[in-house]
């Protein structure tokens, strides 16, 4: 309470230590998304409230008869924050740039058949107001449109970026720490592990009410709560259930829940004899105290979701076939040939909530005789082991990359080549040596299914098959609980499909 | 010179109470000192230093010193407040410590230490004090007093350190000087120089001197009177000149066990200690 936050400034406490680059062609972290989403506009934008697609830098769009060529009409009245007008060239350059730079998130575009070699021809300026994208197969249009709402498809100010380019990096080095977008905000300052300061983009059609957004890195939830209670910040984004309870009981504050796209799961490596034995992974699915966890130490932070699609996605279903049932699981284990259980290692990232879940899992699996040894490791170590197919059980989290069901189906239910040599290191099924025979074909077909309803049905089917066959024990979907001052309105976390939006936020002063 | 003794000590006792038992370092010592040279001899550990220190009330815990009477030129030293006692120390009674190597502050220049000895007792300007210090160093036969003044203790030889120590204690012109083995660290040649200085002071200034040593031959030739200590007690008090006639077997033993140049090469006589002496 040393000072109230300024009326035209939105102050947010968040953990942003994962923020490392702000170039939309490269950034692939949650915090990066929260920033980039507000610095850049894409061709197609999501509405902060409804999260439905609407025009962005493209006024309208269309798809050709053969379903392979998409055209976008550019809104040339828009300007970048630098004052440069938004041109068809910028759009073409930005999308080609992603493919050419070939950074991690590029697959979101390259999965449509765009390659370094063909991108000059497949992404083209038709005229000053029109851009066309030609894909290799007649994909479901919703698939491409959804992909284009991802951060990686942000439109970058070519002139500004090229002025700051070094070598042939297309401005990559400079854009890591600067912004060149047409979004509602521009980057004023970013101090790694400290803060991000954004200022309103004066060239944005509807200038946001919050002239400044200040995101402060505060790693401790308890600290965030204190800051919130003292009025030092407007929004606290990483509160624990206990803190949330306190915030709820505080009449100056409020809590807003929003489901996020991240999925909590445990996977069993099919290279391990015990885990590959039919019935074992199914038994484990009955050995998780889903409700106990969701109602105690993760209360409010997660909702039980036993499917690979988060609620909010096309094709998501709300089936919850599993619950803690030790007797049943014991029987299943006995049938599988392990009446006395076995010993297994659970790889888990060294974070508090995950360790708590791991300990609970250790406890309940132990009740059926499965002796779990928790192996905590840093994030990148977990990843190395996991990617090398060397994990046994892995407790991990998966976040969708773009708001289309394929983002999850392609990793949970599709495995084009289960051999070690294939090195499909980004694919969860491959990492767990799960061939996904029953669903691989379905997933491949679903992306070219033009009928959205039919497409949804296909994903529902894949999930049900997964429940029976996959070595993925899907447990929860994240839910973000933000504590905020009562007077803050219009803040959106982006729900399950996107990142935070600040442009609609207002603060009423009493 | 007055007849009244400068210092009167009666039944002085020093006890150390430690966890491993009680040690009585000095057990009822009485003597008087006038403006003369009084020697205290005795073997190591006989309580010579403790006697000297307790006169200045400088026995540190766990040691405790008591006396029936401790008078210094009419002042009861035991009755003085710590502050008044401090004024006595250095100014009226000074003590040359046993080993100059450990008795000078190693991180302070000799000059500062000398000046300090003056300044705690007199209001005196810095330059005046310096002058006096130079003079004092010259008095104790230091050849290059300027250089010594700006030197640190470790830069001095043992003999120079001892003379500096003497200069430091003499600079406020005390009435009584307790010299605790002032020459034991010195070569025979230097030893005699130092003694000559002390001798001069007693003669010229009328200072009283308590000369502590274990070297019986030295004490007998240098002092007027000798106190012989054994296990914390004075076993004999005798004029130095009459030492050859000493009666106490301990004193005699000490005298006889010394080898002498040109003496016989028979085994030396050894002292036979008698329980009754203690």
């Amino acid at each position: 309470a040393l000072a109230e936050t300024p009326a035209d400034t939105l102050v947010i406490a968040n953990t942003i230590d994962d923020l490392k680059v702000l170039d939309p062609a490269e950034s692939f972290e949650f915090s990066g998304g929260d920033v980039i989403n507000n610095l850049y506009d894409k061709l197609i934008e999501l509405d902060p409230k409804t999260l439905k697609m609407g025009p962005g830098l493209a006024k309208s769009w269309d798809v050709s008869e053969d379903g392979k060529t998409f055209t976008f009409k550019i809104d040339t009245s828009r300007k970048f924050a630098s004052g440069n007008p938004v041109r068809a060239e910028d759009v073409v350059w930005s999308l080609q740039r992603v493919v050419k730079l070939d950074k991690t998130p590029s697959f979101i575009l390259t999965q449509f058949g765009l390659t370094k070699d063909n991108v000059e021809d497949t992404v083209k300026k038709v005229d000053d107001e029109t851009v066309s994208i030609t894909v290799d197969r007649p994909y479901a249009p919703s698939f491409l449109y959804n992909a284009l709402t991802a951060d990686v498809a942000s439109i970058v100010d070519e002139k500004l970026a090229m002025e700051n380019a070094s070598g042939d990096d297309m401005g990559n080095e400079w854009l890591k720490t600067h912004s060149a977008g047409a979004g509602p905000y521009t980057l004023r300052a970013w101090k790694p592990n400290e803060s991000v300061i954004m200022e309103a983009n004066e060239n944005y059609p509807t200038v946001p009410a919050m002239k400044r957004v200040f995101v402060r890195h505060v790693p401790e939830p308890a600290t965030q709560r204190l800051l919130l209670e003292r009025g030092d910040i407007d929004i606290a984004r990483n509160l624990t259930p206990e803190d949330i309870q306190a915030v709820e009981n505080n009449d100056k504050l409020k809590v807003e829940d929003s489901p996020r796209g991240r999925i909590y799961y445990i996977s069993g490596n099919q290279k391990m004899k015990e885990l590959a034995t039919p019935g074992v992974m199914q038994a484990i699915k009955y050995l998780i105290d889903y409700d106990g966890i969701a109602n105690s130490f993760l209360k409010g932070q997660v909702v039980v979701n036993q499917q690979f699609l988060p609620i909010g996605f096309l094709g998501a279903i709300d089936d919850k076939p599993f619950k803690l049932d030790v007797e049943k699981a014991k029987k299943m284990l006995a049938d599988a040939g392990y009446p006395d259980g076995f010993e297994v290692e659970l790889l888990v990232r060294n974070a508090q909530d995950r360790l708590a879940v791991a300990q609970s899992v250790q406890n309940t699996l132990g009740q059926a005789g499965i002796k779990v040894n928790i192996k905590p490791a840093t994030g990148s170590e977990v990843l190395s082991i996991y990617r090398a197919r060397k994990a046994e059980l892995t407790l991990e989290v998966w976040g969708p990359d773009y708001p289309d069901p394929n983002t999850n189906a392609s990793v949970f239910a599709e495995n084009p080549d289960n051999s070690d040599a294939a090195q499909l290191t980004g694919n969860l099924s491959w990492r767990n040596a799960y061939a996904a025979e029953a669903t691989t074909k379905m997933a491949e077909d679903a992306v070219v299914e033009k009928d959205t309803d039919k497409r949804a049905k296909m994903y529902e089917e894949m999930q049900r098959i997964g429940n029976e066959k996959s070595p993925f024990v899907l447990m929860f979907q994240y839910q973000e609980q933000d504590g905020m001052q009562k007077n803050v309105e219009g803040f959106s976390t982006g729900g399950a499909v996107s990142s935070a939006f600040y442009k609609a936020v207002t603060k009423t002063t009493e | 010179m007055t007849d009244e003794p400068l210092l009167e000590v009666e039944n002085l006792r020093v006890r150390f109470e430690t966890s491993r038992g009680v040690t009585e370092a000095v057990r009822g010592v009485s003597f008087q000192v006038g403006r003369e040279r009084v020697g205290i001899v005795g073997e190591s550990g006989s309580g010579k230093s403790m006697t000297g220190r307790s006169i200045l009330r400088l026995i540190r815990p766990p040691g405790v010193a008591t006396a029936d009477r401790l008078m210094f030129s009419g002042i009861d030293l035991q009755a003085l407040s710590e502050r008044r006692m401090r004024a006595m120390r250095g100014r009226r009674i000074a003590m040359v410590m046993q080993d100059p190597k450990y008795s000078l502050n190693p991180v302070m220049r000799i000059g500062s230490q000398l000046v300090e000895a003056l300044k705690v007792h007199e209001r005196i300007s810095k330059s005046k004090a310096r002058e006096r210090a130079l003079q004092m160093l010259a008095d104790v036969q230091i050849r290059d007093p300027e250089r010594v003044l700006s030197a640190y203790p470790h830069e001095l030889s043992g003999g120079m350190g001892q003379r500096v120590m003497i200069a430091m204690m003499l600079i406020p012109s005390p009435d009584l000087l307790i010299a605790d083995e002032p020459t034991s660290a010195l070569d025979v040649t230097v030893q005699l120089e130092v003694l000559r200085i002390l001798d001069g002071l007693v003669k010229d200034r009328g200072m009283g001197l308590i000369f502590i040593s274990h070297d019986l031959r030295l004490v007998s030739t240098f002092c007027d009177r000798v106190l012989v200590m054994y296990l914390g007690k004075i076993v004999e008090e005798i004029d130095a000149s009459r030492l050859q006639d000493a009666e106490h077997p301990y004193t005699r033993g000490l005298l006889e066990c010394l080898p002498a140049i040109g003496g016989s090469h028979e085994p030396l006589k050894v002292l036979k200690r008698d329980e009754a002496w203690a």
Partner: protein
Amino acid sequence: MSVSQGAHDPASAEEEAAIAGTGLLPRIAGRFGKTLFSLFVTLFGLLLVTFAIARLVPLDPALAVVGPRATQAQYEAARKEMGLDQPIPVQFVNYLSDVVRGDFGRSNLTSRPVIDDVRDAFPATLELATLATLLGVLLGVPAGVVSAVNQGRWPDHVLRVVGLLGYSMPVFWLGLIALLIFYGQLGWVGGPGQLDVSYELSYELDVTAYTGSILIDSALSGAWDVFANALTHIALPVFVLGYFSLAYISRMTRSFMLEQLGQEYVTAARVKGVPEGRVIWVHALGNAMVPLITVIALSYAALLEGSVLTETVFAWPGLGLYITQALFAADLNAVLGGTVVIGVAFIVLNLLSDLLYTVVDPRAR
């Protein structure tokens, strides 16, 4: 029983001949040159060890850069770009030659040159460590002296227990509890971080970054409100770290003072009639200062390097936190760079304490 002082000083004859000796300055210069050499050797060793550890650690910097979704090809490309495909000795030579040119590489955690990151983080650590050490010295030395003078009596017991408590308290725990009480409950001090969020904005706008230290910069810029706010924030971590350093310094002071108070020159000073206060605070402490300087320098160095936990608790954007996070994120350039900076700081402090030592102790010249 101590080894008795030999009856003769074996070095006296020689020393008599060389009272004045060579001047202080050339000797210090000679020492300096020698120390400079050992500094380079130590630094080289430091780099070698750091590098070895960095390569031993099963963390994969390339993987950390490309992230979980990367394809094998992207991963390989990143490895190549970072030079990780080369043999390790070659990597080390490359790294060394970069470091010699002042290039510590780029942090993949922040995408900035490590040097820039360190330049941002170090002042925060320096501020904290300096103030904490100051507090530790200003309170710890007198406490230690009083304790020694009263050995075995109640002031000694009280001061020792207070000191030992500070030495026994996990800093991170003390920090949390202090934060809870003084910030959470009482609101007397600022919260975690270096400034209130609102002041952080005005810091961005009104304060010129002369040195990188918020306190100094805001004072130089005349932004006194920012300065005052920064003070309320630094107060608690300084107190927590300062308590720790106080505990250590007072304990060492006590032990050095006990040693000095038993020396003959102290008695000699008393014999001269020097007042007790001067005996203790000038004579004894003057000598105790000699070993104490090293102790203080070491504790200062330890604060510079070791406040990782405090920095975590107080969200203090300092070097310790930076390196720790870098370590967790497999950001090896940052770890190496930060470690080298701390190592250099340590060595420089050692050097300084060496020099100070020669100033304070004539025997060491």
